[in-house]
Each structure stands twice: as C-alpha cells, then as structure tokens.
C-alpha cells in the first residue's frame, strides 16, 4: 500500500496540493481524476521524489520512501517518453537494464512483441501512439509492486488505446498496485477498482467503483460531473 497523508505542495505562491490523502492498494487499479492543472502529475512526481513536498508523509508499505529502494518498488511512467530521440529503442532498453535492478528482460521482449515495436527504430521516428507504447514497455518491464501511469491514453488512436487497455487485464498487472490518470474515463471505467477525485488541492471523493454502481446506481462519469460541474 502506498499511503499519502496530508501531502502539501506549493509552487512559488501557488498552493497546488493542500493536504492530499489517499491510498494505492496492491492488486487494485486506482484512477486519479482531476481537471488539467489540478496537480495529478505533481502527486505522481511527489511519490517518486521528483519534486519536494512542503508537508505530509508518503509511506510505502508503512515505511517512508528511501532513494534506491523507491525505484525497486515503484515504476513511474510519465506522460511522455523521456529518452533522447537519437537513441534506438534497443539502446533505451539497454540503459534501463543497467539502471534498474528490477528490470525483467523477458518481460520487455514480450511487451515489445505485444505492441509490435521494432527495437532497431530510433525513438525520434516513433509515431505518437508508438512512443506511448514504448513508454509503457519501459515502465512495465520493471518488476515493481507499484506502477504509476500518467495519462497512458493521451493523444493516441482508438486501436492503440484498446491495445494498451489489454495490458490492465493481463498477468503483467497481476498483484500490482496501479495508479493512473486519464481523460478517457469512459472507456476505462469497467477496468477500475477505485477512483479518487482531486479538486482545489484536496481529494474530494474516494470511491469503490462497483460499490458506487451497486449502492447509488451511478457511473464514475456521473460522479465526475457532480464534482467538476461549474
């Protein structure tokens, strides 16, 4: 379980996170929902210690995060590929292999084949959809207990989205705790266990999706409208 407890983050004068608390559980897919600029990416970066926080705690399985250990337990897939465009995919994979102790080579080959990616291609030549898929390969081939995915579906075509959503039901995700942000909530809805809604720097709703349907007869999108209606 990753626990965020009263996390506060300020960018200069702008208080982005005003006391964010929620948990990411193993074996569950949790979706972090919020409008653009609400701090979704900041939360992921805070978990990964890529940005400092001013207050609050982030615990992984009950313990504070420490440098190297963090990368062995949590994989972060940012909203765009961060590898240099001149690199070949095979070079990027070799880099990951050296950098990440939890890199699983067989899994990376499996993912490359699943997404039909050519390892001899250069990163700069990838289409948007291909780059998004390769970005996933780099994240998911790490054998970590948790995966954070920032907008894995943004700006890519329907068929690629369908292919990517297949990953969530595969054994690649079995037992892992997944946190993702997305704007394509409609298509994703039946894949989610939980949805947490971020507004004005705090979590305003934290729901179990099946219970929401069972007890309220509502969809996640219904709640989205309630939370973000102007």
């Amino acid at each position, binding site marked *: 379980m990753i626990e965020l407890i009263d996390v506060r983050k300020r960018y200069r004068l702008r208080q982005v996170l005003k006391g964010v608390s929620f948990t990411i559980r193993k074996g569950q897919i949790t979706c972090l929902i919020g409008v653009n600029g609400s701090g979704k990416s900041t939360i992921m970066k805070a978990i990964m210690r890529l940005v400092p926080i001013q207050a609050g705690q982030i615990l992984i399985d009950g313990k504070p995060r420490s440098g190297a250990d963090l990368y062995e337990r949590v994989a972060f897939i940012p909203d765009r590929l961060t590898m240099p465009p001149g690199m070949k995919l095979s070079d990027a994979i070799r880099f990951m292999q050296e950098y990440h102790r939890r890199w699983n080579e067989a899994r990376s080959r499996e993912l490359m084949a699943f997404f039909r990616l050519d390892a001899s291609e250069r990163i700069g030549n990838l289409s948007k959809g291909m780059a998004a898929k390769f970005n996933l390969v780099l994240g998911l081939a790490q054998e970590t207990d948790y995966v954070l995915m920032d907008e894995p579906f943004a700006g890519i075509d329907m068929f690629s989205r369908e292919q990517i959503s*297949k990953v969530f039901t595969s054994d690649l*995700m079995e037992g892992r705790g997944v946190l993702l942000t997305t704007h394509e909530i409609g298509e994703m809805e*039946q894949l989610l266990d939980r949805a947490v809604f971020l507004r004005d720097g705090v979590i305003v709703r934290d729901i179990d999706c*099946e219970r929401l*349907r069972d007890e309220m007869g509502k969809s996640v999108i219904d709640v989205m409208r309630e939370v973000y209606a102007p």
Partner: protein
Amino acid sequence: MAGLGDFENVVFDPRVPVYLQVVRHFKELIATGRLRSGEVIPSRRELAAMLNINPNTAQRAYKEMEEQKLIVTEGNKESRITTDEQVLRSVRSELIESEVEAFVRAVRKIDVPLEELIDLLQRKYKELAGG
C-alpha cells in the same frame, strides 16, 4: 459450445455493477444453450481480458456464480458450468420471469387493458420474430 464471440463485444451499463452484468451474461448463455451442462468456462483472467474488465471483477462474478451454484470449481482446476439440471432449468425461467416482470411494470404505467396487451403482444412477437 460457447464461442469466443460470446465473451466479446459485451456492452456494459456503467451504472450497474459489472460483476452482476457478467453473471447475467452467463445466465443468458446458459438459457440459450450456448453454454452447456458441464462445459469448461474461461479462467478469471481470460474472461477479464476478453470482456476488458477488471480481473477483480471477474473474480467476484465467478464467486457469485459459485454461490448461486451455476458453476463449480474443484480445487485449483478450471471452472465448469454445473451439471445440475434443476439449476440449469431454473436459470431460463428466472431470466424470462424477470424480463416479463420488467415489461409488465413498464406497460402498467400506461394503463393498458390486459386483453389489448395480449393482442398487441402476439402481433409484435410475430412481427419481430418474422423480421
């Protein structure tokens, strides 16, 4: 035998628990004979992948079907449709009854006399079955 197509392209209502919709889908397959007595069904993970649903939801649907004695799972082996004929027969009547009930509730709101309704029902039934 149920084909792959029977587990794909299922459209879910986002406001109804997914696991209940999965159970309902299995009942339809049983009632129409596409899933037969004793037939092996996909594993939970296979089903999740085919229906594009959360694996925990597939697990919950199977648990629900086990409780309703629609399927049986022996130890770590694959799950099968029950061979209990009485259960299988009741699936069909349960589905028909619940649909008819929903229909009656809907038309009662418009105060249609039963005679007229039966007439209309017969006509529409032939029309739709013929088309």
